């Protein structure tokens, strides 16, 4: 086998990184929710696809540009996340058996998937705009415009979340609760409040990811679960509970997928992605980016 040209490698890397950022932004949401609630929110992917359908509806019926609809999707996501927590997870969060929350998430996934099928049908949908086919050429490689925008959305979304967690007192409370919920309550931090905040931000990110997905990929109501799985892989790569790591993990997963597809075959992409996932879980469960923790 001859080694491909540097252009091709660069092109592969760009495609992989741009696509992987979508997994990353989904993983950031999962990471926040897992952090405070210890819940694997399996419905995150379904929420992203739901957001993609809403973006399409706004575009088709009201003529709102998909990227402009971010201004609607993010606030709607914040409110929806808050409501989902208060309505569905508040009670289960207090239970010690975490299966209950997990199953509610599964129920939400079923519900959302099938609601979408009933409303929009089971066929593949896409959002096609005047700029869908356009791209940016640089140094002989081409980056699709919509994918680049998706990448920017993922980057900006993660940056905002990190700023919130690092710079605001409420954000610090969310981090504190992720580390030690009991100690956090002794500071007067309400678990329900931090859980609801994590959920609100998680679903708002799903809204933003929905914009990115709608403009780049064809999607169908059942694509969400695979998306959730990929986000979980990204989460594990980045280290569970590490927000920037989650985004980086998504990008790495995108790169792995792009290279496997090119060098091996498309059929093995998932097996290799999950193989890396298993290996990381077993040999570096704290994620790829954690430095060994020094005890004084």
């Amino acid at each position, binding site marked *: 086998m001859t080694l491909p040209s540097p252009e091709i490698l660069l092109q592969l890397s760009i495609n992989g990184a741009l696509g992987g950022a979508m997994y990353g932004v989904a993983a950031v949401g999962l990471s926040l929710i*897992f952090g405070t609630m*210890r819940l*694997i929110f399996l419905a995150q992917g379904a929420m992203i696809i739901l957001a993609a359908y809403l973006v399409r509806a706004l575009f088709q019926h009201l003529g709102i540009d998909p990227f402009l609809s971010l201004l609607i999707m993010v606030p709607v996501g914040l409110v929806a996340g808050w409501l989902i927590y208060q309505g*569905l997870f508040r*009670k*289960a969060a207090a*239970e010690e*058996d975490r*299966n*209950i929350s*997990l*199953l*509610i998430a*599964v*129920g*939400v*996934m*079923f*519900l*959302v*998937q*099938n*609601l979408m*099928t*009933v409303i929009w049908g089971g066929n593949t949908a896409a959002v096609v705009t005047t700029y869908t086919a356009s791209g940016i050429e640089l140094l002989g490689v081409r980056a699709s415009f919509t994918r680049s925008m998706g990448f920017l959305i993922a980057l900006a979304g993660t940056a905002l979340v990190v700023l919130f967690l690092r710079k605001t007192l409420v954000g610090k409370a969310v981090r504190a609760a992720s580390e030690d919920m009991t100690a956090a309550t002794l500071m007067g931090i309400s678990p329900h409040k931090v859980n609801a905040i994590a959920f609100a931000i998680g679903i708002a990110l799903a809204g933003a990811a929905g914009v990115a997905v709608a403009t780049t990929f064809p999607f169908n109501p059942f694509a969400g*679960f695979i998306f959730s*799985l990929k986000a*979980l*892989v990204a989460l*594990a790569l980045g280290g*569970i509970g590490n927000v920037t790591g989650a985004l980086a993990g998504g990008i790495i997963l995108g790169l792995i997928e792009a290279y496997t597809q090119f060098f091996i075959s498309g*059929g*093995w992409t*998932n*097996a290799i992605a*999950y*193989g890396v*996932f*298993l290996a990381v*879980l*077993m*040999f570096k*469960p704290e994620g790829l980016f954690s430095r060994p923790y020094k005890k004084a």
Partner: protein
Amino acid sequence: MTAMANVSWKWAAALLTIILALVPFWPGAIDSYLLSFLFFVFIYAVMAQGWNLVAGFGGQISLGSHAFFGLGAYTTAILWSGNYLWGSLYETFPRIYYFDPVTMVLSGLVAALAAALIGLPLLSKLRGDYFALGTLGFGEIVKVIFVNGGDFTGGAFGVIAPSSTFETLMPHYWTGLGLTVGTAVAIGWLMRSRYGLALIAVRDDEMAASANGINTLKVKVAAFAGSAFIAGLAGSLYSYYIFHVGPDSVFNLDWMLLPLMMTVVGGTGTILGPVLGAFIMYAVFDVARIIVPDYHPIISGLTIILAMLFLPKGLVRKILPMSVARN
């Protein structure tokens, strides 16, 4: 008092089993909807019982049971369609693979072996959510391997077994009933044995169990493999029903999610919970499918959410006295 309730409960269960076993003799029952309904209830009950062994009694949430179900189904279909087991006997007895106990047990063993192989590294390294995620990843890998398995696994299409052997649903029904009762009795007995006590000890406090000389890894891997064996048997039984074993049908995540849900609705860590949960949840799903075909998955989703919101500890613990529920 509780002993009395216990004994009478066992008689009631035995009586119910006999009645269920006689159902196919009812005039017209063979072609009825009831029979196939109960057949599916049995498959789900067996799957739920298997998941309950490792998750309910063992405390290790596995999200990979669909992989073991699929391995069992594929083993039966491949052994049969390729005639790997009985050689020339197959020509003399063309029905030899149909509900062949050797094939079925082998299917369970293949699943159990896979579970032991993957469980050993996973369970020695991973705990709690990480183990759950690991099993989920494993399930997806197995699926991809079968899709890419070439002629041996039939690729994305799968394997076809000779469906001409099918006559009635009666063997399916009785085998399903037998497996349901058999797994319940076997696990009930197991949980009272030394092994069962060790398993519960590991679930409740791994450190303490280990300090008391229990080899916790061995206990956990055994539960994981046992649960996979049961799932493999269920998969084998299912392959006699669909004949076309393909990755999308037998590695479908529903084979993991639905039994998990049924167990939790019925009551995790109880023997009757998985059976009761399978019956009730499958009834809800199937009734919804018949009455409102377009919306039934929505109703399924709603049912899970409502069940978890209002019955988080499971039905069994709600309707039966504790002493009975535990058995």
